[in-house]
């Protein structure tokens, strides 16, 4: 395992690359989901008529 992590002496370069990619994609996914959730929440607050209650019930 430690041999795997050492990457033949190139650990810094390999893991800085893979780490940055993983971090960027995870952060982007979280941010996009939060944005979609917020948009739908604001939509529910903007439409205070019957559909809101139905939608809330649907969730």
């Amino acid at each position, binding site marked *: 395992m430690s041999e795997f992590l050492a990457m*033949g002496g190139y650990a810094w370069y*390999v893991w800085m*690359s*893979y780490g940055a990619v993983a971090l960027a994609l995870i952060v*982007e996914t979280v941010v996009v989901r939060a944005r979609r959730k917020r948009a739908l929440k604001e939509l529910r607050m903007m439409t205070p008529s019957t559909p809101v209650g139905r939608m809330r019930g649907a969730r």
Partner: protein
Amino acid sequence: MLINWYRFSSPVSFYPLASIGAHVFGIFAALLAGAGLFVALYVAPTDATQGDAYRIIYVHVPAAWMAMFIYLVMAGWSAAALGFNARLSAMMAQALAPTGAIMAALALWTGAFWGRPTWGTYWAWDARMTSTLILLFLYLGVLALRNAIEDPRRADRACALLTLVGAVNVPIIYFSVQWWNTLHQGSSISFTVAPKMAATMVAGILIMTAAAWCYTIAVALARVQAIIVERERGATWLESLIDLRQRGIGRSPA
């Protein structure tokens, strides 16, 4: 099959489709990334000259390809948005820009960490590296322009125009390694010449690229859902969206 595809050019019809697509492509992306990482870090042999530093290729090449492909797709949607004055096309272009910027930044970042052990430098003003940096600035420029214009329809047109003008940079990036005598190496994988790499290495790159495609489609569709709701709320069709959600269609993936 009699499917009226024009139906999907309106945001209302597209929303549930985007929801399903985001879910399905997200699952594909996760599975392919798992398989790709297994090949990249475990199955593929160590390179004879570069040692394990070469393994950066499995994230660098997909990121660099996606940075270029996303720009071309974004330019295509922009052309459609200008030509047909189509709202949804502009929204798709808008949804792709942040992911394109991330891919361009990752291509530069991973390239730097690959360049250091192999070329002895994190950065050089090499033709391909410089043109990729310009690509990142184009993405950032489109995003900044979008934020600077209040009216979304005017922002659509301005961003589409900037995107189309900047598209000239993509072939420059692609052919830079042929046109100039650069530090950056030539194409790793060619469609015309048999690969010079081991089959597992080529397979690893292709699987990781497929994962990057699926990820991009999934995240862009999820973002376009948010954009549709942000821009179209107040429109009457949202009532029908609520009806769709009621029936379990278009439910945002958990």
